[in-house]
């Protein structure tokens, strides 16, 4: 190593950070990966060495400063190292969502202008080769996992390991090694460090350019905020291309020097979580929800004694857990009961979920149900909320350890300036703020205010205690024809908090009343149906079952009652709903890759159902094309029933619950 002894506090690029860690904590674990059933570990010194070899190999392929290189795959150490290797040279890595279909991948790859692509395996290679004619710049396609690729004779296809071996051999020459050192030293913090494509909730995805010094600056703020150190460990299981992974694992890991563990495969992530026992964890609300659903289903199948213990102590946790976590005064006997509950239920439960060692956990991306949030907080998990954006390099707001609530996302994160525009839109300036959209200066200008704030496109307001509350996308907040406020996401989230409802789409802007299309959650409804002895052959059949309809109707009714209690929202109660005959799916373009609803696509595909909802019809028919994972197309034909609901008067007094189902 030509230079050494730098302190990570001074570095302004990820390549320099890596070099500093290799000197400072060379023998500490940096990456882990479960392979062939065993956890393999690399130290910071080894990672630096491996990354240099890849970088030199990429130089051999002609990668230059400022050029882009795409990374397509899941969380695997060599893909992370490829990101750093590109950054060593001053090239710009572009992680791409690995589960995107060929068409989407082609669009992003083409827009990124990448000449080299590092792909995970045969599946990704096949996908990229299938659209090669749309990628005229593509010169080299490298792969991490060689299985199944031995017989391929495609132009430019090579194993990443082979390229790294060539690089390693070249680095044996001290002159070559010195040249690489000079490249690392020459990296400027103001240069683009990475391009992260947005998930495209609101249209085509855009390439968000982030610089090294801003990325690292933002990560330093939050590492200090949550007191992360090189003793921490995180499981990197979120999509590599998502800002959350690049921030929480890559950037914070490289800043704090903690260990990043990569799961064996997406299916084993839950088990790998248990084996690694991370100290720092992020999961979207739906992951926490899935975990809780699993716990509840298993508790229902447990023996009577266990069930009783679980109920009794979850009751104690529900009453006192959050207060204890927030440091409020709690009577001694409650404290003792909670301690006993921890011994018998909470600690074993957290252990079974792989959350025993977690010091800090975050959730974000969508609203989280109060009960769901309270459950995890009450068993002693330090779960907090943050609000972020790719354009901010994640953090805009984050809750502090002792001021945590489910219905707000916290005060501004350290060094973030936040304001609410007159339109109700949230705007910010942050340390990690993006440089611009890649090759779309007009979009960059549209997104920035004249005084340098970034428009989030989200509508929100501050609560009296300074925590931000997000209600919806600014452009989605609308009004009914009668003038009542209608925030679709707000309504949908209330529906989605029921475990039986996976997804909901509320329609009401400019219309006479609010209507909703509902997606049932197969796991929990199937379990319920089993206990009710309801027979069904398919998702479609279960979704159309009259008893399922009756059950969902009760849930919608409960949402209406809750809405009726909020003066601003009472006018936006759901008057008609239907249950969709298929699950909304990213492969059909109905959801983004991060599982957010795409309203435009849904309005188009389900137009006939929406017409039915807005008319007085008691049923509506749909015929739509669906895409299977392998790209084949199928056809969906169904007639679905529409149910009418009487609204609650906007009053505070709760109505008696006994109401006749009123199916059309």
């Amino acid at each position, binding site marked *: 190593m030509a230079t050494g002894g730098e302190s990570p506090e001074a570095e302004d690029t990820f390549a320099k950070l890596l070099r500093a860690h290799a000197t400072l904590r060379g023998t500490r674990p940096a990456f882990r990966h479960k392979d062939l059933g065993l956890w393999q570990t690399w130290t910071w010194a080894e990672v630096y060495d491996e990354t240099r070899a890849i970088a030199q190999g990429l130089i051999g392929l002609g990668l230059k400063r400022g050029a882009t290189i795409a990374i397509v795959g899941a969380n695997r150490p060599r893909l992370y190292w490829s990101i750093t290797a590109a950054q060593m040279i001053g090239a710009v890595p572009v992680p791409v969502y690995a589960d995107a279909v060929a068409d989407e991948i082609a669009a992003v790859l083409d827009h990124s202008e990448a000449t080299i692509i590092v792909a995970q395996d045969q599946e990704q290679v096949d996908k990229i080769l299938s659209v090669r004619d749309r990628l005229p710049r593509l010169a080299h396609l490298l792969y991490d996992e060689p299985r199944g690729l031995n017989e391929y004779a495609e132009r430019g296809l090579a194993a990443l390991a082979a390229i790294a071996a060539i690089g390693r051999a070249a680095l044996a020459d001290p002159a070559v090694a010195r040249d690489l050192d000079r490249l690392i030293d020459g990296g400027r913090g103001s240069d683009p460090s990475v391009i992260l494509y947005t998930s495209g909730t609101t249209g085509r995805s855009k390439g968000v350019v982030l610089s090294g010094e801003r990325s690292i600056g933002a990560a330093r703020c939050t590492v200090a905020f949550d007191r992360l150190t090189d003793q921490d460990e995180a499981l990197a299981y979120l999509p590599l291309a998502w800002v959350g992974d690049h921030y929480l694992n890559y950037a914070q890991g490289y800043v704090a020097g903690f260990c990043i563990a990569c799961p064996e*495969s997406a299916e084993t992530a839950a088990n790998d979580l248990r084996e690694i026992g991370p100290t720092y964890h992020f999961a979207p609300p739906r992951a926490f929800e899935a975990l809780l659903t699993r716990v509840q289903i298993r508790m229902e199948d447990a023996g009577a004694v266990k069930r009783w213990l679980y109920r009794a102590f979850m009751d104690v946790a529900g009453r006192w857990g959050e207060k204890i976590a927030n440091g409020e005064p709690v009577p001694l006997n409650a404290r003792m009961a909670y301690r006993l509950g921890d011994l018998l239920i909470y600690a074993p439960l957290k252990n079974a979920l792989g959350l025993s060692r977690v010091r800090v956990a975050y959730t974000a991306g969508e609203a989280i149900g109060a009960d769901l949030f309270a459950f995890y907080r009450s068993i002693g998990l330090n779960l907090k909320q943050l609000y972020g954006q790719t354009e901010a390099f994640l953090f805009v707001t984050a809750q502090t350890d002792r001021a945590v609530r489910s219905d707000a996302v916290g005060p501004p994160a350290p060094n973030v300036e936040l304001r609410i525009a007159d339109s109700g839109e949230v705007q910010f300036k942050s340390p990690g703020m993006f440089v611009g959209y890649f090759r779309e200066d007009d979009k960059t200008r549209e997104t920035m205010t004249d005084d340098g704030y970034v428009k989030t496109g989200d509508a929100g307001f501050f609560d009296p205690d300074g925590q931000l509350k997000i209600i919806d996308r600014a452009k989605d907040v609308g009004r009914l024809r009668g003038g009542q406020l209608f925030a679709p996401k707000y309504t949908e989230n209330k529906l989605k908090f029921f475990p039986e409802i996976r997804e909901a789409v509320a329609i009401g802007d400019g219309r006479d009343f609010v209507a909703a299309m509902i997606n049932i959650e197969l796991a929990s409804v199937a379990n319920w149906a089993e206990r009710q002895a309801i027979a069904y052959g398919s998702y479609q059949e279960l979704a159309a079952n009259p008893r399922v309809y009756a059950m969902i109707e009760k849930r919608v009714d409960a949402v209406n009652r809750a809405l009726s209690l909020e003066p601003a929202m009472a006018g936006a109660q759901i008057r008609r709903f239907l249950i969709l005959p298929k699950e909304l799916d990213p492969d059909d373009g109905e959801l983004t890759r991060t599982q957010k609803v795409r309203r435009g696509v849904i309005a188009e595909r389900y137009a006939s159902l929406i017409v039915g909802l807005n008319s007085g019809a008691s049923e509506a028919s749909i015929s739509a094309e669906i895409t299977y994972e392998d790209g084949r197309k199928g056809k969906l034909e169904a007639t679905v029933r529409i149910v009418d609901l009487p609204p609650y008067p906007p009053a505070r007094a709760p109505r008696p619950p006994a109401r006749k189902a009123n199916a059309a």
Partner: protein
Amino acid sequence: MKAETDDILLAVEHVSLSFGGVRAISDVSFDIRRGEIRAIIGPNGAGKTSMLNVVNGFYHPQKGAIRWRGRARARMKPYEAAAQGIARTFQNVALFKGMTTLDNIMTGRNLRMKRNLFWQALRRGPALDEEIANRRVCEEIIDFLEIEHIRKTPVGALPYGLQKRVELGRALAMEPELLLLDEPMAGMNREEKEDMSRFIVEANRYRGATIALIEHDIGVVMDLSDRVVVLDYGRKIADDVPEKVKSDGKVIGAYLGVSH
């Protein structure tokens, strides 16, 4: 994918098999070449499974002979066939339901464990080295079949499609020269069939196993196999490459039920 060598791994010569008065197989001859995928097809009750049982020594034919690696084979028990490199899977999955995926696949390594009970009980020295080496082979198979997520799950709790995959894993763990698959895709949906087809092709190409399979899904058979032998009422009625078999009048007749 065609077998380039005419090297014959196993030859069935004029084999007849009957149970009491029922003739399951009458005077059937065919061969399996090293490195090929050989399909045995035919309507229900044509004698396909009986044929497989003859090949792996479970049944002993009254007439005819089996030549294994060019030499006439003496009467043989299934475990002897296994020791000689013949592995199989079953029409109805035959796994140890209470054992995990990994343990089931490890049983496929049983014949490769050379250390005696004494060493194995000690779990030290050579027995440990052997166990580690065998575990590695099994883990590579688990990786190959993409079943990491069920490594520690008792197979009884797995869906049928996955059980079939585990069974293939156990057979592969024997590193067989000849792999007999009895309806590997039975009861599977289209996606599972595509996965299984891929595993069969890769086992053949990269893991070097010669494969003989029985399958009802004719589309799969025509895609996968190098040569097809067709049985009907215990007799061989065709034996050729898939394209020829597909247009063979006798085969069409047998499947459509034309009178004999």
